[in-house]
């Protein structure tokens, strides 16, 4: 930074970005060896779904994080992509189309893109709240159509297909789940790379500008509507690919794939992962699969927990998990992470206490409501609770109250500490600037 020369710096030397290659290498490596580490069939199922969710969340974030467009109906594009992919797959099975199965997701992508061209033209005429409202309307429209056209949408039962079809390429039939996993991993890696590349193109940068200040964009020569529209189409393409992969994975597509719940999931988890940074939605996608597959197995109250987490995230960390990570990396890069380590452990401990207390009460309520027939006893974190017993309720409430009290004490301490650290960093930055 100090090496800024005095001759006019119209050209800046940019060193070869080693860090970026390392990160992309690691990303590929993780996807390569993940099925060797988690070998059970459940984990393989989850891994394939993570790959699909990564593409979906990243595509969603092209709009939300990079373009400031809040779409409430984005499952439309992945869902219609799914339908086109499964119909294509069935054409292949019937021998009417000579397309390798591995390219079927591309059909989904082109389908998603085509619908984005069509519907996005209306949607992107407006920005902000009107945009959100129109996407909501379009989403409902397509959902309603799915009931009206059973020929295409398959009615209640959906459309099913068989991915083990056509001539195998290099002996790959996509019968075993692991073969499909690697196909999806390949798609995920390429799509991630493409979407990252998109952020570094003129259109990608102008999309950021439109997010920040659409009015000014009009005065530097750009039509904001076109910027939004083209980004929407690109996003629709990648959503469609995610949908196509999902069709191959589940081998069945039902009308749920276009509904508002699915759209909401993309929004919720993209936000949880963090819309500010490019990699945020990847974290969100992992969380999405963990919540939808694991948490829903673990407890019936999973949607409640999810809602609570989302609420707290919006209130306390609106940048999502990725921005929490980046803030701490910043602190670490100034060598100031050490003093706040203790606070993190304390926050985690007290937070877990709150969760245990609250969780016990929530589980007891759910148990009373849903599992009346099984009697009042239930297992919670290894302990046996009696949902009708005073002791259990008192104990849970006690743990909760103590947890909240301790958490608040630790939190206040931490907020002070954090402010102090930030101040020190600001000073450090000023000092470094003065050196230049």
């Amino acid at each position: 930074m100090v090496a800024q020369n005095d001759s006019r710096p119209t050209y800046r030397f940019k060193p070869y970005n080693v860090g970026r290659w390392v990160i992309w290498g690691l990303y590929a490596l993780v996807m390569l060896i993940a099925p060797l580490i988690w070998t059970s069939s459940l984990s393989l199922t989850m891994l394939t779904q993570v790959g699909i969710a990564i593409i979906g969340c990243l595509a969603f974030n092209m709009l939300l994080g990079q373009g400031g467009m809040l779409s409430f109906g984005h499952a439309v594009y992945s869902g219609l992509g799914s339908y086109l992919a499964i119909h294509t797959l069935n054409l292949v099975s019937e021998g009417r189309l000579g397309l390798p199965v591995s390219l079927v997701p591309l059909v989904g992508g082109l389908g998603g893109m085509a619908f984005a061209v069509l519907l996005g033209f209306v949607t992107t005429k407006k920005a902000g709240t009107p945009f959100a409202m129109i996407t909501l309307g379009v989403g409902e429209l397509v959902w309603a159509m799915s009931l009206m056209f059973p020929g295409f949408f398959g009615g209640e039962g959906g459309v099913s297909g068989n991915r083990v079809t056509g001539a195998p390429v290099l002996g790959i039939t996509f019968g075993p789940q692991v073969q499909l996993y690697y196909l999806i991993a390949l798609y995920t890696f390429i799509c991630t790379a493409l979407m990252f590349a998109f952020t570094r193109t003129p259109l990608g940068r102008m999309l950021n500008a439109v997010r920040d200040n659409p009015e000014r964009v009009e005065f530097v020569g750009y039509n904001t509507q076109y910027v939004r529209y083209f980004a929407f189409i690109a996003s629709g393409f990648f959503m469609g690919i995610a949908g196509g992969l999902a069709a191959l994975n589940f081998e069945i597509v039902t009308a749920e794939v276009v509904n508002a719940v699915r759209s909401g999931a993309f929004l919720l988890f993209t936000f949880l992962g963090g819309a500010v940074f490019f990699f945020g939605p990847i974290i969100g996608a992992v969380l999405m699969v963990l919540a939808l597959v694991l948490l829903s197995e673990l407890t019936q109250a999973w949607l409640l927990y999810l809602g609570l987490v989302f609420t707290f995230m919006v209130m306390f960390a609106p940048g999502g998990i990725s921005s929490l990570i980046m803030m701490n990396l910043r602190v670490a890069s100034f060598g100031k992470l050490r003093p706040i380590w203790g606070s993190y452990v304390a926050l985690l401990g007290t937070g877990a206490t709150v969760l245990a207390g609250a969780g016990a009460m929530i589980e007891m309520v759910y148990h009373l409501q849903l599992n009346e027939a099984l009697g009042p006893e239930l297992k919670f974190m290894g302990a046996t609770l009696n949902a009708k017993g005073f002791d259990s309720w008192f104990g849970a409430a006690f743990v909760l109250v103590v947890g909240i009290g301790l958490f608040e004490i630790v939190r206040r301490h931490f907020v002070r500490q954090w402010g102090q650290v930030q101040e020190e960093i600001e000073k450090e930055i000023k000092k470094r600037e003065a050196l230049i």
Partner: protein
Amino acid sequence: MTNPGAPSALPPQGGAASGPAEPAPRRPLDGVVPAVELKDVRKSFGKTEIIRGTSLAVKPGERVAIIGPNGAGKSTLFNLISGRFGSTSGDILLHGEKIDGLKPYEINRKGLARSFQVSNLFMRLSVFENLRCAVLWSLGYKYAFWRFLADARDANDRADEVLDMIKLHRRRDVLAMNLTYAEQRALEIGITIAGGASVILLDEPTAGMSKSETARFVNLIREVTVGKTLLTVEHDMGVVFGLADKIAVLVYGEVIAFDVPERVRGNARVQEAYLGSALAETQAAQAAQR
């Protein structure tokens, strides 16, 4: 240049930006096609007429300051010229070509750029990115998603060049929202001139600045608008007399005088209308202080 009858000493360069295909319109203004021309422009909001038949012809290369009491319609006039609002009637011409009714981006592509009274930046982008966004269209990048910005040498060089011109190269990678007020004002000007427009509209560029900052800023504006047609709305008379070749006095939506500074100063109507109301303002301010 003090003689208003003499032809402008600056070379006409109106044709350069609007392309060779332009049919040569014959407008009697020393034989030069005006860079900006307003012909009986009117604008009403509801029943209130804000701009009431404004006519003005600015020669290429001229620096014109538009002054007038509060509410005279100076900013509205800028909004009409730059396409933010449509006019109710009348013609607005840029290099002899009608531009009223066009969208802001279409007018910008024809070679007119403007700044805003309240800094209007891309707050979450760095200073460099702000400038690069401002040059992309003028260099023909359009909506390209098949090429990298890093390889766009001309755009990067131009952005760095403007960065130097507005003297923010030390703040290159700072987010626009973290700049000081004066730096944001400088960036505002930088974005405006970056695209290389031949006609520049600056809406109160020095508003809210200290005396020393203002003096520095006047120099900056003069440097970055060399060879360009400049229209500026300004309240600070020091800036007006330091910057402008000509002054247009706008009172209640009408141009009551348009001349070199010396003559405007001596103009009886201006003294009556403008200084009269300025006097009233001063008296009101003094009354408010008491």
